[in-house]
Structure formats: structure tokens, C-alpha cells
């Protein structure tokens, strides 16, 4: 691969540098806000793999987000920090297991049914945590101390420090982006694209379509779990609402905003969505009208789905695909 120095590449480089340097000049609140954006960016990328690249619209992606979060919470002892490697790998394993179990069932169905079945599975997880006392019920559960990232007693990274936490999630975002990029450019990725365009043809060509879909579903689920894990440890609070269908719908919105089938678009969509929410519910900016944020958000979502099917990136990119 050779990189040309174009305006675009320069801009991206500058943007990345600025994001990297953010904790050096921004206030703590904004560093944490951007950590959230990075986490939701990871989450949106994972859903985009399903929606944008395989054509599977899920309305239950929050199940992975919440499962991993609860795993992080349940594996953190109350009076000391848990081990990052243990709770992280356990969380991801649970997500993989859940993806396998539900994927086998959900992928038997198509379009509308798939949307609803994924929604129903997420609701099931919601009720399990809401109705039982496993994770503190509706009041949620705490992670008192962020897991310790240490090998044989030597602390590698101090995640309690909000700056370190930001850089750590930033690193994960880059790594996941690179992983998905490579994956999608591989033979496997092309096959997924083929399935999205014409499933029957791919089957006729001898591709084991079901296994391709299931593996993509599992990958998406486990990356969604990574996002959920980081979301849980950032503020140390996990609640059943993390699994609600609103969370699933919001992340779907992020994917659309950024333009489906574009990994950096998903991250961009997540940032626009979160910043917009921050903006329209801000009373010092909008006065008492801010309590009508849901009206504004509603109109925004309706407008995007009606007028911007390719998302904001479709709006900005000159000479869009059509």
C-alpha cells in the first residue's frame, strides 16, 4: 500500500493527531465525553458490519452491549480492582456464546422477522437482568474500581486515570477499525458483500452462506461486547436500560447517520449523534426549550431517514454515488 499526500489524507492525519492530543488540552468532562464517543463509535462499527456489509438489520444489538457490561460488573470484586484480562475475556466469551446461540435461531429468519427476533432476544436479556437479582435488578449494579490492567503485579496502564482511559479506548477503536478493514478486504469480506447483494447466487456458487452470516453475527456481537465492556467500566454503572431497545435504535441511527457500509462513517455517525444530543438538551444554550429535546431529536431522525438515506457522509462527500 502506498499513501499519497492528498488533502484528504492530510485532513485525516490532522484530525487523528488532534483526537490523540485531546486529553492534553480539553477539560475532563470533554475527555470523558469523547471517550463515550469512541466507545459508541466501536459499537456503531460493530453494528455496521451487520447492517452495512451483510444486510442484516438488527434491533437487538444492545444485548451484547449490556451482557458484556454485566459481565464486567459481576466479575469485579467489591473492595479491590478486578483483573482486566479475566473479566474482559469472560465478557467477550459470553457475547460469542450468546451470538452463537441466538444467531443460529435468528438467522433462520429474514428481514422483518430478523429485526423482530433480534429485538425479542435483547428483551429477554433485559428481563433477565431486570426481574432477577443477579445484577441488582432495575437499580443496576456498580463496578467500584476499574479493572486492573496488570501482568504479574506490574500495572501496565492506569485505567482509573481518565486520560489513560481515553487513549486506551482510542487505541481499541483504531485496532478494531484496522481489523474490520482488513477483514472486509479479504476474500471473506467480499463474500459477505456478495451475500448482501444476492444471497441465492452466493449459495448457488457453493458458499456456505449460513456460516458466513453466523460468523459475521458473532464477530459483530463480540465487538459490540467490547464497546459494552468499556462503557460499563468508564463510569462503573450498569443498568438493564443499557439493553433496552432504545439503545439498539440509537446505535442503528448512528450507523445510518454516518452512511451504511462505511466504518469511519459509523464512528462519525456516533460522534454526530452524541454531540447533537449533548447540544439539544443543553439548557444554557436553548433555555427551557431544551426540555423538548425529544421533539427536536425526533424530527432530526425523521428527516435523516427520509432525506439522507446515505447519511451525513453522503451529504458531505462531493458527487455522491448517485
Amino acid at each position, binding site marked *: 500500500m502506498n499513501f499519497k499526500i492528498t488533502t484528504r489524507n492530510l485532513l485525516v492525519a490532522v484530525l487523528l493527531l488532534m483526537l490523540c492530543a485531546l486529553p492534553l488540552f480539553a477539560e475532563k468532562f470533554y475527555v470523558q465525553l469523547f471517550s463515550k464517543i469512541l466507545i459508541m463509535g466501536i459499537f456503531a462499527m460493530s453494528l455496521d458490519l451487520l447492517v452495512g456489509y451483510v444486510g442484516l438489520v438488527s434491533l437487538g444489538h444492545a444485548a451484547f452491549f449490556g451482557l458484556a457490561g454485566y459481565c464486567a460488573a459481576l466479575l469485579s470484586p467489591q473492595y479491590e480492582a478486578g483483573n482486566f484480562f479475566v473479566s474482559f475475556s469472560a465478557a467477550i466469551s459470553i457475547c460469542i456464546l450468546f451470538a452463537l446461540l441466538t444467531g443460529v435461531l435468528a438467522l433462520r429468519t429474514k428481514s422483518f422477522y430478523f429485526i423482530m*427476533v433480534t429485538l425479542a432476544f435483547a428483551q429477554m436479556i433485559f428481563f433477565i437482568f431486570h426481574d432477577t437479582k443477579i445484577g441488582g435488578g432495575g437499580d443496576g449494579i456498580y463496578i467500584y474500581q476499574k479493572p486492573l490492567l496488570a501482568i504479574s503485579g506490574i500495572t501496565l496502564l492506569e485505567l482509573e486515570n481518565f486520560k489513560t482511559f481515553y487513549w486506551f479506548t482510542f487505541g481499541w477503536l483504531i485496532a478494531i477499525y484496522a481489523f474490520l478493514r482488513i477483514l472486509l478486504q479479504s476474500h471473506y469480506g467480499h463474500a459477505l458483500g456478495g451475500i448482501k447483494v444476492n444471497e441465492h447466487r452466493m449459495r448457488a456458487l457453493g458458499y456456505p452462506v449460513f456460516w458466513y452470516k453466523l460468523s459475521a453475527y458473532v464477530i459483530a456481537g463480540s465487538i459490540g461486547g467490547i464497546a459494552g465492556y468499556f462503557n460499563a467500566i468508564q463510569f462503573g454503572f450498569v443498568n438493564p436500560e443499557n439493553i433496552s431497545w432504545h439503545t439498539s435504535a440509537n446505535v442503528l441511527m448512528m450507523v445510518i447517520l454516518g452512511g451504511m457500509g462505511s466504518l469511519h462513517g459509523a464512528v462519525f455517525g456516533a460522534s454526530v449523534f452524541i454531540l447533537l444530543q449533548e447540544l439539544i438538551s443543553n439548557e444554557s444554550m436553548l433555555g427551557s426549550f431544551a426540555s423538548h429535546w425529544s421533539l427536536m431529536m425526533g424530527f432530526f431522525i425523521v428527516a435523516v431517514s427520509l432525506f439522507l438515506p446515505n447519511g451525513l457522509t453522503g451529504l458531505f462527500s462531493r458527487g455522491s454515488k448517485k
Partner: protein
Amino acid sequence: MEINSILIQLLNGIQYGLLLFLVAAGLTLVFGIMGVINLAHGSFYMIGAYLAWSLAELAGSFWVGIAIGIVLTIILGMVLEVVFFKHLYRRDHLYQVLMTYGLILIFEDLRSVLWGNDIHGVVIPELLNSSIQLTENLTYPMYRFFVSAVCIAIAIGLYLTIQRTRLGMIIRAGATNSEMTQVLGVNIKLIHAVVFSIGVSLAAIAGMVASPISSAYPNMGTQVLITCFVIVVIGGIGSVWGALAGALLIGLADTFGNVFAPEYSGLSVFILMSIILIWRPEGLFKRSYK
């Protein structure tokens, strides 16, 4: 457990199921004919309940209030179809999910502006304000029987309209092949608007009819929405009989879940759905129009 108690629980489950059917029928109709997933369907249920409350107070009669309310929701359905939904027919489900999610937010906010955030009770009309003695200390309100009767009447009415009338024939034709139907000189746009507004008013009627039992309160639509989606999926999308069967199953599962397994009753509905989908991924009934 006494046999009487089980029989009464059976009645409870069927009665609840019928009410759910009324909300789910509009959902499955709109999906079956126009192919639109409408998350905002629950909002129409809420709008119905609030309309019943405010119109009954204004008109001084529950029945007059409902009559006006039905006319208003049909108009509302038409307007929404023209302004929002008709742009979605050819689009991916994804956009339908999102747009209607946005509409939920809008409707909730408008509800708070228009009607406030209070809970409002609707008085049971005098005519039906009596009850039947079931056991020595349990009575069953007449109004609940009335609700069930309305639900059954609407189920039969829907079936007859779709299967036996000219309008139904056109609707079925339009669902199968809308271009062809249009070529034959049918105004398919009008048909869509009509079907959509029927769907809206069905949900709203459910809200209105249920309002003396349920009251009108904020966010009442979202709760019923998820249950209705489960019903539609179990029954088979687009099938009115499927919705009826699904609704009755869910009504019974919920009722007996509460009785026999209260620890897991929240899950019972979803477990039932999973089992049915493993058995029949397309739901219990295939779409009846095609």
C-alpha cells in the same frame, strides 16, 4: 388449584389476548399490505386513549367522544401517510424502523404539550357500568365483556372486508403486485392511504375502547408495542387470523405465567416466541392475502 380458578384465569387470558389483538391487527395489516414496519403504532394506541379522555369530557358522552375520535384518527392516519409514510414503501425496513422511532419521540413530546403529563381516568359509560358475579367475592365487569365483543366484531369485520368486498379484493391485489393493480386503473395511492389510516384508527380504537380500563398516561404506547410485535411475529406477518391466534397465545402465556411462574413471567412471552420461531420461522399463519 381449584378448577374454577383455572377457568377464570382462562377467561382473563382470552380477554387480555383479544385486547392485544385489536392493537396488533393494525400493525399486521399495515405491514402485510404496505410492507411498512411501524414502531410508532403504539403511539396511536396512546393517542386513542388521550382522545377518548379529552373528547369524552368535551362532548359529555363517551360514545360521542369515541365517534369523533375515530374520525379524527382516520384523518390523522391520512395526513401521516401523505406526509411521512408514503415515502417509505419502497425503502429498506431499516429506514422504516428509524423514521417511526423518530415519530415516537415526536408524538410523546406533542402529547406532553397538548395534554400534559398527568394520568387521566376515563369513566365507564353508564350503560355498561355493571358486573357479573363469578364467585362469592369475584365479579367480572360488563365493560370487559364489551371490550372483548368489540374485538371479536372487528376481527370478523376485518376478515370479511379483506376477503369478501371489492375494496378487500383491490387491497389484496395491491399487496401482491401494486404496479399491475395501478395499470388496471386502481388508484393505489389512495388505497394505501386508506389502509394506513385504517391501521392507525384500529390502534387508536383499541386505545379508546381500553381507556376506561387502562386510563390514559404518558408512554403507554411503548409497552404495548413490543408485545404487539411479538404477536405479529408469532402469528405470521400480514395475517389477521395469525394476529388473533398470536394475541390469544400471548394473553394466556402472560396470565398463566403470572399464576404459575411469577419469577419468570416477564420472560414467558419471549420464550413462547422463541419456541414458535424454532418450530415455524415464518410464524403460525402464512399471509392470507397473497
